[in-house]
């Protein structure tokens, strides 16, 4: 089994590893670190197939590394469907794969994928006779389900913390941190909810210039102002509309039920994988996932790495990987100019211009990628690579705002964006939105929109001439 490679953690990395711990994986004892997600330790140990998909039993592995997708689900300590990318290694943990027969690694039901042709129509399936239909129902039921029901002891109901707040800010990225800081600076009490263990959002990405320093600055600033209550590893789960908004959030040991006079939603985006043949093959990651793996967690899952993309951030990531001595198979881009591209050329990274990815190939893990000319469907170049970073337009995380009744609009370019006015106010008077879900396209723009929404939100809570002047001067600037 080819192992992932651990590299030295760069200076200033917020994702520091703790002490070594050992955990059980399907009868083997593996090594990880305190604070390191299980998924990362598993990849470092060479585990590539984390599970199988439900219908075609195709191999699945971690994709987003940010707790959004279903690629890294495993059974942990007797509980099914645990996202291993957000579950830290702990000594003595028992970790197993849960799909596939006899195992996720070698799954005979993969035959379904290989034999079923272009598509398997589950609506018309087994309808030829009523007897066959009942037998098939019995068999299919045995095969259904992601994991076995929990064998761990029943959990005592988790305590609930119920309170009111002037404002709740969801998401501690550049926008959310700015909004919370601004609001509390205006004298309002604020609850800031962050799903991840670390604050920062995109600022945590190694490819974001000065991101890590800016997080430190934010941390100092936020800790210096009174009135912000921060909960990390506490994702907001729902916003129920009502006379006052009801925000429900939860972490491992506690559920929060908050009546909020105002809400600022700064939930950012979900990274997407573009559509091409076999785009679900393990080894294919979005730029932010690869960034988190290599720059943050200091694990290179496989090499050589091919990077496909147009955005500055993606090209900068390629440069970062090169600096960290990760073997690159090259960079595929339609870009012809820009500092990020020049810098890659200076680092002797091979650039494949005017091409796009049409197909990924491999058995249980990526082997190679076929590229075609921009204007053609036929592939004319095959590149060997064991990991591929490929960029797609991200999908804004608009759901919470939508639960609460805010209007959302779609465009093919940006996906679903929460509709806001110049001040970041949504169509729901008590809810504001800032950052990438409201259309910001950079961390700087996100931070600015967070500040603006923070000021407008503060004003809507209490009129204040000074705050109004600040907001006006921001609008002019």
């Amino acid at each position, binding site marked *: 089994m080819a192992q992932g490679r651990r590299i030295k953690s760069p200076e200033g990395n917020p994702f520091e590893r703790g002490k070594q711990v050992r955990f059980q994986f399907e009868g083997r004892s593996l090594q990880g670190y305190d604070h390191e997600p299980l998924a990362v330790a598993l990849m470092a140990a060479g585990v590539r197939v984390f599970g199988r998909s439900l219908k075609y039993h195709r191999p699945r592995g971690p994709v987003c590394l940010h707790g959004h997708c279903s690629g890294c689900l495993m059974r942990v300590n007797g509980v099914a469907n645990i996202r291993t990318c957000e579950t830290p290694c702990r000594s003595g943990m028992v970790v197993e794969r849960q799909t596939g027969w006899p195992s996720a690694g070698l799954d005979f039901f993969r035959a379904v994928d290989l034999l079923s042709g272009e598509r398997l129509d589950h609506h018309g399936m087994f*309808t030829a006779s*009523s007897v066959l239909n009942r037998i098939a129902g019995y068999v299919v039921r045995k095969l259904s389900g992601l994991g*076995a029901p929990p064998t761990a002891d*029943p959990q005592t109901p988790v305590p609930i913390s119920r309170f009111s707040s002037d404002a709740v800010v969801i998401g501690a990225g550049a926008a959310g941190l700015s909004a919370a800081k601004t609001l509390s600076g205006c004298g309002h009490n604020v609850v800031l909810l962050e799903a991840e263990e670390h604050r920062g959002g995109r600022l945590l990405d190694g490819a974001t210039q000065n991101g890590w320093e800016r997080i430190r600055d934010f941390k100092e600033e936020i800790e210096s102002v009174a009135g912000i209550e921060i909960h990390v590893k506490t994702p907001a789960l729902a916003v129920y509309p009502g006379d006052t908004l009801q925000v429900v959030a939860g972490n491992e040991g506690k559920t929060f039920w908050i009546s909020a006079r105002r809400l600022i939603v700064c939930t950012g985006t979900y990274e997407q994988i573009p559509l091409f043949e076999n785009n679900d093959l393990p080894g294919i990651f979005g730029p932010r996932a690869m960034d988190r793996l290599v720059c943050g967690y200091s694990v290179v899952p496989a090499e050589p790495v091919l990077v496909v993309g147009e955005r500055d951030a993606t090209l900068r990531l390629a440069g970062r990987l090169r600096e960290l001595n990760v073997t690159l198979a090259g960079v595929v881009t339609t870009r012809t100019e820009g500092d990020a591209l020049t810098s890659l050329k200076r680092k002797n990274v091979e650039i494949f211009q005017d091409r796009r990815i049409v197909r990924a190939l491999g058995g249980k893990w990526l082997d190679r990628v076929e590229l075609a000319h921009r204007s053609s469907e036929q592939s004319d170049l095959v590149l060997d690579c064991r990991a591929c970073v490929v960029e797609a337009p991200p999908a804004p995380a608009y759901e919470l705002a939508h639960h609460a009744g805010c209007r959302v609009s779609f465009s093919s370019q940006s996906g679903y964006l929460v509709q806001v006015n110049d001040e970041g106010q949504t169509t729901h008077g008590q809810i504001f939105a800032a950052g990438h879900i409201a259309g910001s396209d950079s961390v700087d723009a996100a931070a600015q929109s967070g500040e603006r929404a923070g000021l407008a939100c503060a004003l809507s809570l209490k009129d204040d001439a000074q705050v109004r002047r600040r907001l006006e001067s921001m609008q002019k600037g």
Partner: protein
Amino acid sequence: MRDRAELVIIGGGIVGLSLAYQLARMGMTDVVVLEQGYLCFGASGRNGGGVRQQWSTEENILLAKQSVRMFRQLSREIGHNIWFRQGGYLFLARNAETAAALEKTVKLQNRMGVGTRIISPAAAARLVAGLHTEGIEACSYNSSDGVLFPWPAVWGMASVARQLGVQINTHTRVTGIDVKGREVVKVVTDRGAVATRRVVNAAGAWSWQIARMAGVELPNKPYRHEILVTEPLKPFLEPMLSDLSNGMYFSQTMRGEILGGISDPDEPSSMETGSSFRFLARMCSSMIRLLPRLSRVKILRQWAGYYDETPDGQPILGRVEPLDGFIQLNGFGGHGFMLAPAIGKIAAEWILRKVDHRIFHTYALSRFKHGETRKENFVIG
């Protein structure tokens, strides 16, 4: 859209489509179905897919028994797999009064040829591993009740009806019904009008609004009913469980999800379909109490649909005074889906071949005027 039809069905839910499907199979295809949203937009796309024969009135037992027989054949008939799984239904009574009522209905069901049994809480625990039986007085169990996927039943019936010549118009909202004297003449929609002499009101939660367009007052009121679904797990629960003390029910779908809901006596009548934290909390608390191993099972999603409720919990079927061609098939509360195959068949035979059936008398709207109601005691959720 056709501008005239022999029959117009308002409502593309399971009741309207079951009728259209049966009519088409019997040869009547000059039928237009009007659906305001997409197929599965209303309660037919939002329910838990439970199918049971454990009812407290003869009519409902009869309809349910026939529907179970029909559901067993439906996947083949419509070429869409509805994944009907007869894992049984287990009702739980927590006090002596409910236990006595259970016993009475089981006797009635047995008389009608439905093999429900009263079983002890200990026997129930053998059917459901980990069932917390403390406080349970008695249970009734019928092994041929079951659960199915509602959506493919809707799509399949629509698809066959269309192939046979019925026109089903989705995203078409009825805005008026023109009446002349005792006759219906036209149904007006936001996409044009259809001239017709006969209209079926199978609009579920919207039935009272539709009826009013023709000058008929129905006593039906829509109520929100919420429901949730968990992560899909390997099969571990055979029957549908239903706690009669609070109207909670849940089962495991063919995909492996736990899916269920709970009654809320404080829910006001409304056209609301939003989700509430109150429901989530009450449902989680109640399901963990009954089956503690669900405590670690993850909730994936909650949603809501409607019960189209009448004062006695029974549907409104057949003709209404003073209109001749305005037929009601509504007021099914939470059990329209499970009775729809039989209702569609019986109504089609009645409309096309004038075969009368007792349900058009027992469940006529006029019963409320004459005070001849008999309440259904087993409306759950």
